[in-house]
């Protein structure tokens, strides 16, 4: 039949085709893992927001009472140690306050739509900075990827679509300058993606080992028993706050009556 016009590939070309195939598989896998990581982060952030709003604020309040008590004690005793303890307690109270009322406390529940997930996967697959071939390319990809992350967290489908369009129309995505150069570039991309996949696994592991993740697992466990972990923690803290407040009140009453 058309045997004569079959285009025979040179060994370099064959190798390049194989590597391109490998790269494409890796791109898909990486996009999946990036999506998984992004969702894990979003879930943890949402839980963290709830934790800070329901429990964290109470730690801040508890620390505030402890700092007030330390201050009264320092004034009464007047020793260097007591004053240092009061300063330390106040610093702790302020740290807890800003942590409990900061940016992280505003995170809300995140449920990405299938469309949003698909778009994010597409962006990660094509735009990923680890596909960059030079410094300028990488900078551009990093900018786009950061925007994509933001858009994903905000559930902004249009923004994700725009990022994809912007990337596809950019000159950086045009390829080719000879088989040998292509091969070098593809091999380098493969290495970068493999490295990133390993790194994602490490990040997933370390996120899972974080205290907020442990709290989340615990909360889910007890919620299966019909209990509310955060409410229980809040109740316990309210008691401790009451206790500290009473201690403060009795200490300041003693101060007033010599």
């Amino acid at each position, binding site marked *: 039949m058309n045997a004569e016009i079959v285009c025979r590939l040179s060994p370099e070309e064959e190798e390049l085709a194989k590597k391109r195939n490998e790269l494409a598989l890796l791109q898909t896998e990486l996009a999946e893992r990036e999506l998984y990581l992004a969702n894990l982060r979003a879930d943890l952030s949402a839980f963290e927001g709830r*934790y800070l709003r329901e429990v964290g604020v109470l*730690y801040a309040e508890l620390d505030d009472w402890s700092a007030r008590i330390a201050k009264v004690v320092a004034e009464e005793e007047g020793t260097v140690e007591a004053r240092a303890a009061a300063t330390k307690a106040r610093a702790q109270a302020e740290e807890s306050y800003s942590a409990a009322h*900061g940016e992280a406390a505003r995170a809300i529940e995140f449920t990405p739509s299938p469309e949003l997930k698909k778009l994010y996967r597409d962006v990660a697959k094509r735009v*990923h*900075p*680890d596909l960059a071939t030079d410094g300028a390319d990488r900078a551009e990809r990093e900018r786009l990827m*950061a925007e994509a992350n933001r858009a994903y967290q905000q559930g902004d489908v249009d923004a994700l679509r725009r990022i994809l369009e912007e990337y596809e129309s950019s000159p950086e995505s045009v390829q080719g300058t000879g088989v040998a150069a292509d091969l070098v570039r593809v091999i380098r991309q493969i290495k970068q993606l493999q490295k990133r996949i390993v790194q994602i696994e490490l990040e997933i592991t370390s996120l899972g080992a*974080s*205290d907020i993740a442990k709290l989340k697992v615990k909360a889910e466990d007890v919620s299966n028993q019909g209990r509310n972990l955060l409410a229980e923690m809040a109740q316990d803290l309210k008691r401790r706050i009451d206790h500290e407040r009473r201690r403060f009140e009795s200490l300041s009453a003693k101060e007033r009556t010599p």
Partner: protein
Amino acid sequence: MSNEDEKATGLVPSPSSALSHVGTTSLAQRGMQDLIARAEAEQWCEQGRIFQRQEKYVEAVECFRRGLQFDPNHEYLQFLIGSAYYQGNGLPERDYTQARFWLSKAAEQGHAASQAILGIMYEWSFGVQQDYAQALEWYRKAAEQGHPGAGYLLGCCYWEGRGVLQNHEQALAWFRKAAELGDASAQFNLGVMYGFGRGVPQDDAEAVSWYRKAAELGNASAQFNLGVMYHSGQGVPQDGAEAVSWYRKAAEQGHAGAANNLAVCYEKGLGPQDHAQVAE
């Protein structure tokens, strides 16, 4: 180059708040530590309760102590160790100072049974200056939470005007509340109030119904009074066998009046003929 690579891969995606906020991390860590400590305390508490049921009081107290090291705010553990000191169970001797120390902690956190015991300590001056006003306040706190025994004790304070102006209406209200929650002493008192028309219109049927509740819970005085009601046919149809059966229950608990009446009944031929038992 490799250095640059590492830096670059670290940039994407954007960092999460879950790991980057130092303060937040420490708040989550505290939450986790507190949870672990409380679970640990809970385990010691349970183990201590098991020892208590096995009457191994020394071991039980040791468990309560360990539990409190993990969670010094654990109100039930505070109550348990406080009651151990109050009763002298598992300790070289009763120690009212330590009892008051621990029970106050639990009571201030709102633990009703601790509040009730603390009230008793103030009323009867166990290891503390007698203070009826304090006793009344702790009874009230516990009773308002629905602690039946405290309701009864609070009723007694009102009835006798201890730590408060005498007020039979208030006494009645608290006795009734405690009685409805199943406190046998309060049920007995209500029975007496109805039976003798004290603070309420006299009503034998009502008296019998409260005596019966208390008697069924094993209150010897109520068993005796119920026996009397059956014996004399007040508020119930006269029934010698019933009277004997309730006298006997009270007498078995050492109620002298019941033993006496039981003997009288047998002499008159009421009830089964087992004199030998009665004579004892």
